[in-house]
């Protein structure tokens, strides 16, 4: 194991960003991915360990305005128990509900779940259907610089994102969903708690006069990154929610989901689950 020579726990964002300006810091927040990865040897600590949890203003949920903002160090438990979020974006709260276990939800941060960039990350499909973006900050030219990246373009491959080593994910933002927005989330594993999703799926859409619009469907664990299912979305956009459109959408999953065989499930089973989940969420919405 590499020696950690320096442990930093700054209170201010600019201090943290300066400390990581060389791109050589190991960022610690909840530690729920970092600890097992360093323990197994999949990752090494660098000489500088930077705890971002104590930075002022990096936590908390602002849901009162037209744009919802969730600070990067917000825990999954905080999302799960947030009354305004449950009102505005229940699809996100639902995913938090199904996330690991109580002990892990208390530690794991939203920013960490995104930066870990697992194809199975539980918070990703709901944020994709909410049209979320991530705010990345770095120290450049003697000041804090930020950029906003649509979450859909954030993931590159398992464990890899477009975030530069000197950048810190500081917040997740999305527009407050319209009043006629509906969102649904499904995930599956061998048991309800403490499971890495075999497959996850989220649906977000507006429904007016029985027609779907602004349809977004996102899937996890069916490709190297979580993805938007464009063919499925096209099959539903502007359509009434009837048996024909549901069947067409279910058939279109084959175009979007390209799962692999691995230790958790076969490609065949994952493809099957995607079809089942999509049909379930569409029927759920139809039933309401």
């Amino acid at each position, binding site marked *: *194991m590499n*020696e*950690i*020579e*320096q*442990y*930093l*726990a*700054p*209170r*201010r964002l600019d*201090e943290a960003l*300066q*400390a990581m300006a060389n791109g050589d810091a190991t960022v*610690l927040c*909840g*530690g*729920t991915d970092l*600890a*097992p990865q*360093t*323990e*197994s040897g999949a990752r090494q*600590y660098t000489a500088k*360990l930077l*705890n971002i*949890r104590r930075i002022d203003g990096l936590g908390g949920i602002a849901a009162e305005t037209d744009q919802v903002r969730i600070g990067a160090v917000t825990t999954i*438990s905080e999302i799960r128990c947030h009354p305004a979020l449950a009102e505005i974006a229940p699809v996100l709260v639902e995913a938090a509900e199904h996330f*690991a*276990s*109580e*002990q*892990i939800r*208390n*530690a794991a941060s939203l920013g960490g779940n995104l930066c870990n960039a697992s194809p199975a990350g539980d918070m990703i499909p709901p944020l994709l259907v909410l049209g979320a973006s991530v705010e990345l900050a770095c120290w450049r030219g003697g000041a804090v610089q930020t950029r906003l990246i649509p979450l859909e373009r954030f993931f590159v491959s398992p464990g890899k994102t477009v975030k530069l080593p000197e950048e810190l994910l500081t917040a997740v933002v999305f527009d407050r969903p319209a009043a006629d927005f509906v969102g649904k989330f499904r995930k599956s594993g061998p048991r*309800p*708690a*403490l499971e890495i999703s075999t497959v996850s799926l989220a649906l977000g859409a507006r429904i007016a006069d029985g027609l779907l619009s602004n349809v977004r469907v996102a899937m996890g664990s069916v490709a190297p990154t979580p993805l938007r299912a464009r063919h499925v979305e096209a099959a539903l956009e502007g359509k009434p929610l009837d048996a024909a459109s549901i069947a067409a959408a279910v058939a279109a999953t084959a175009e979007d989901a390209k799962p692999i065989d691995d230790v958790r499930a076969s490609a065949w089973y994952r493809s099957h689950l995607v079809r089942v989940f999509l049909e379930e969420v569409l029927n759920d919405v139809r039933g309401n």
Partner: protein
Amino acid sequence: MSVGTVKEVQRRVHMTLQVNGEEIDVSFAPYKTLLEVLREDLGLTGTKHGCELGECGACAVLIDGEPLLSCLTLAVECAGRAIETIEGLAQGTQLHPLQEAFADLGGSQCGYCTPGAVMTAKALLDKEPSPTPQRIKEAMSGNICRCTGYQQIVESVERAAGCCRNAEREAT
């Protein structure tokens, strides 16, 4: 960078941890998890090493009243936070109602998962004095037990909840 807000250390961290209400000075390598510091540096071996992957709950302790996994928590992160472990539960020879109920109802058999299960249950009862069996199962779903079949654990937590409520009533 201002020194007052950033802590720099070389190789070993020296800090004061608050464990079971006591302030303890301890020195350890910064990559050490809270579980390792509790067991190896403080001799508090009640908290168990399980999977060390965050999948079994055997190492659960309370930090600022919330159940967390000590195998995933770096000890350096715990400065200024109140840590509670199984060793802090009994008052002298007086067992905590959870300990009593786990012993009486077979909620503990081989005992390996018990410290984590009891601490997780304590966090639940501290916040919710009358949880339903469903709520208990949900709150304890991160604590894996290979012996009891779980029913006895749920019954133990229910019994302890009743005892805690009675004790509360008598005290007021």
